[in-house]
């Protein structure tokens, strides 16, 4: 018996009061389950820490605060110094602190992953909902588009987009550095979420609450965006907590292949530098970037799994 059922029976048999038991919403219930998983919450805090760091760097850059990571280009010592108490991760070829560069890299990586998520959500969720709700011809067109995109191997598609988009002008803005990277990731990765939402909307569209909304005379747009999407949105959150990791790794690979930011440090660029440095025995830049990526990926992976276990009704069996 699930906990929800036990509360309901407890309320029904208990005091015998007239008022019905207060139901928990999916979100409240999910959050309550999530809070019980201590390890997942620790992971969530780690993720928050990364985001806080990125946000802080944006603020610091905006208000011109002279904090360490902003001054990453400052020379703190001689070139290629080993990790020491002064410089935790040593220095790079220009004598810049690798630790500062790693912190600054969080800003670039998280910006890319966030923007890519945003783009793929904005394309994928409405398209999936529209395809699932209207079916027929519209559905066929949308399914055709995503089947086409998904029959091209992902890595080739993303590279093709990145190659073509680099140094192009879009609406008067030149796509330099990370813009081409997150556009390439975003424009190619909406397929999964679109397919997921379409399938879920097809299941939902004949339920009573949609029928009720329709009988009130709600417009189709209102039904889709006010009723259907909020009811399937937990799937989006779950999907993205896990997909975010893939975006961070994609940014590393794209930066490494030379599409990323050329003038500011990012984790991918650091690994790219390390490729040459390793043969000289300089391993600390590589290690710093690996550790930075490792912890956010691990935290997001574990948190995403916990989120899925607590939010997805199909999996809630404990």
């Amino acid at each position, binding site marked *: 018996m699930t906990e929800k059922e036990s509360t309901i029976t407890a309320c029904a048999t208990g005091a015998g009061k007239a008022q019905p038991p207060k139901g928990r919403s999916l979100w409240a219930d999910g959050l309550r389950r999530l809070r019980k998983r201590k390890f997942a919450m620790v992971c969530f805090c780690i993720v928050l820490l990364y985001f806080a760091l990125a946000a802080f760097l944006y603020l610091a850059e905006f208000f011109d605060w002279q904090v360490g990571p902003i001054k990453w280009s400052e020379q703190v010592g001689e070139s290629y110094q080993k990790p020491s108490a002064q410089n935790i991760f040593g220095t790079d070829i220009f004598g810049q602190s690798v630790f500062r560069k790693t912190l600054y890299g969080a800003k670039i990586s998280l910006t890319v992953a966030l923007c890519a998520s945003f783009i793929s959500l904005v394309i994928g969720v409405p398209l999936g909902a529209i395809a699932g709700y209207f079916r027929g011809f519209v559905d066929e067109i949308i399914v055709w588009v995503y089947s086409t995109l998904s*029959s091209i191997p992902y890595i080739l598609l993303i590279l093709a987009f990145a190659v073509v988009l680099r140094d192009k002008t879009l609406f008067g803005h030149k796509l330099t550095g990370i813009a081409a990277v997150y556009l390439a990731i975003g424009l190619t990765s909406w397929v999964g979420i679109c397919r997921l939402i379409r399938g879920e909307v097809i299941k939902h569209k004949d339920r009573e609450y949609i029928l009720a909304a329709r009988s009130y005379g709600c417009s189709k747009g209102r039904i889709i965006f006010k009723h259907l999407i909020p009811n399937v949105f937990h799937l989006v959150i779950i999907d993205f907590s896990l997909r975010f990791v893939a975006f961070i790794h994609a940014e590393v690979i794209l930066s490494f292949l030379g599409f990323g930011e050329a003038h500011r440090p990012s984790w991918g660029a650091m690994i790219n530098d390390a490729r040459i440095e390793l043969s000289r025995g300089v391993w600390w830049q*590589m290690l710093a970037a690996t550790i930075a990526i490792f912890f956010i990926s691990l935290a997001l992976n574990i948190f995403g799994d916990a989120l899925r276990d607590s939010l997805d009704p199909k999996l809630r069996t404990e």
Partner: protein
Amino acid sequence: MTTYIIRRLLYTIPIIFGVLLVTFLLFNVVGGDVSAEIAGKAASKETIEEIRREYGFDKPLFFSSDSQFIDHLKNAVTFNFGRAYDREPVTAKIKRGILPSLSLTVPMFFGLLIISISLSLVVSFVRGSKWDTAAVVICVAGMSIPYLSYILFGQYFLAYKWGLFPVFFSPDLSPVQYVALPVIIGIVSGLGSNLRFYRTVMLDEMRSDYVRTAFAKGLTTSRVLFKHVLKNAMIPIITRVVLAIPFLFLGSLLLERFFGIPGLGYLMIEAIGSRDFRVINAMTYISAILFVIFNLITDICYALVDPRVSLD
């Protein structure tokens, strides 16, 4: 059944057309006229004009009987990909790369498959115990390390520092020698996600009714696992295997790049570096065709094997 196969075959036509449309939009419309780039900085106007004519950039994009799009479709249907920007035919480049790529990806793929399936059986044997939890944690941790770190550290320590393997490809090495380390790195880096996938597959099967029946009639755990669970888990496993085959032909972009193996992945990296749209276009198209074909094979196999698949 025949009608199902025919319908499924016809359905691949719009998909292939879609792929061609995407590559056209990417490389001819957004990418645009790159004849000046091909010709180089010091080229005269006439040379640029000549190249523009050879690659067809002077033609209208869509709406004409002799447009670039019609050319694009014609070339794709006849598998004529023209010459790359360094004047070598694209087809020759691709043919040259297939063998080195396959010699890397095939052992990697099957090694990974065998190791992760056997480990997943072991893990589901001890499910719920501390060992199971430890295995899952190690898998997730393994998935969180960036792929590039595996390659770089593997190459640095195993090949460069300890000298167990050759650092780079060279033509006088035997394939076993230069492929060994990349294969090991590929297997180790892919083990986390694969083991986790197969563990989920096995545990899903463990919950089924027939497993309970098998246990109830007194079979031992190992007999249930190897006789019943593995057989039933074959369906998701085979799907994953068949759909992965087209990717074997693509080679491995990063592994080939780091170890200098002259396969298709290396070809792609080179093409990206020189912005050679012809090569990228051909690779995208060929891999999409392979993917569509193998997808078709999977679907037909399903229809043949599983009586529950509806043929409508």
